[in-house]
């Protein structure tokens, strides 16, 4: 299946799902002629139309046009690596309220560098730790953004 066809199918599915949600928006006595669901429904219809054209076009030209881009060798591999990268982000969100900003950012820096380079050297640990301090100075001290302090705040 080529990518245009896949994107067309995805677009059509999104349009259908969005249409269902849009159609379930309740009516209101304060509504105008167009109403809160007016434009969303129009967007869904337009997206569906465009998706169908894309699907039609990709089916029609599939045999004629050579594939412009070949999948990278070992196409399983990249997707797996991407999931790992996302997991690091998810772990950050889950841990930062408890471990606090500085520690979690250090962990994030360390994890990503390790994940992408495959090694943990003393330099990497050092860079992650000092990087976290720089981030803390920049965001919390200088800009005054109240990043979660974590359970450390309760110890003092």
């Amino acid at each position, binding site marked *: 299946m080529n990518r245009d066809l896949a994107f067309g199918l995805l677009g059509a599915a999104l349009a259908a799902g969005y249409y269902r949600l849009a159609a379930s928006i309740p009516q209101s*006595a*304060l509504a105008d002629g167009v109403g809160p669901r007016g434009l969303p429904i129009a967007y869904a219809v337009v997206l569906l139309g465009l998706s169908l054209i894309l699907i039609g076009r990709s089916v029609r030209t599939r045999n004629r046009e050579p594939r412009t881009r070949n999948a990278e060798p070992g196409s399983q591999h990249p997707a797996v690596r991407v999931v790992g990268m996302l997991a690091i982000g998810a772990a950050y969100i889950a841990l930062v309220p408890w471990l606090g900003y500085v520690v979690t950012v250090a962990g994030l820096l360390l994890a990503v560098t390790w994940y992408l380079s495959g090694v943990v050297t003393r330099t990497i640990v050092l860079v992650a730790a000092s990087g976290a301090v720089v981030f803390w100075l920049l965001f919390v001290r200088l800009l005054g953004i*109240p990043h*979660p*302090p974590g*359970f450390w*705040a*309760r110890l003092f």
Partner: protein
Amino acid sequence: MRVCRRTVVLWLVSALTVGCGAATTEPRRVVTLVTHSSPGGGSDVFLREMIPHLTRVIGGTFIVQNIQGGSGAKAMAAVAHARPEGALFYATTPTFIYTSLLSDPSARYTDLEPVVNLFFDPEVLYTAADSTFATLADVLAHARTGRGRWGAANPASLERQVMERLKQAAGVSPAITTFEGGGDMLINVLNHTLDMGVGELQEIRAQLDAGRLRLLGVVGDDRLPQFPDVPTVKEQGIDLAVRKFRGLAGPKGLPADVIAAWEAAIPKLLDDPAYRKLYTDNSLQPGFMPHAEYVTFMREFGAETEAFLKQSGVIQ
């Protein structure tokens, strides 16, 4: 030293926000006033202007914390989950009632304890100075014969409610449009897209002083001291008055002495000549309400708003 303590408090407050329930070491020394408005927004400016006078009149250290997001939902949650020690209060406006009713926040206005009220923001009806409408009656007459066009600042707000109720009370059916904030609507009054707008006096002050706007009526119980010639809407035969409040609320279970301290302090603050000049210049009406009265007021305001939103189908 002050900077240090302030940072510590900010940290503690954010610890409370995430539900850790950290204990403050000096509960009464530093009082945090939480607002859902961003720095520079209405409530924020109000609090920051009040604090130096509050400190001078009743003592203590006060800081402002902006907890934005969710149209006040987050600020409400932070205050509702804080320990009732008198160290954290929320600056109330009708927004927190609207947000509670319109969405399903983790803490509602009913989860907070109203402490005292300080002010009312007078709501006024106005039109462009060079428009053909001299009085509210003219605008209503136009709405009866032609196509009336009225504006309110936000879609689900006290201002919208004023316009919808005015429409019902006068028995006319103008088009009512809403905008994102008062400035946007003001332009459409100035360029005659709208016959009439409604908003806080403070928002339109610059244009009013420049003589580009005309006041048509006060949507409150009394005339404004700054504009003794402008009649109330009630005087013009329409039974409509709203009170846009500004006060303080805290977590449930506040000790009686904390509430009593505020009840004693606020009248003193409002009588202070320097602060009186400031709030009069900012077109705020002093509207002190002690705790018991404020609780009843808030309950009634909430019930009235809920009835309006249900009647108009905005909520089920």
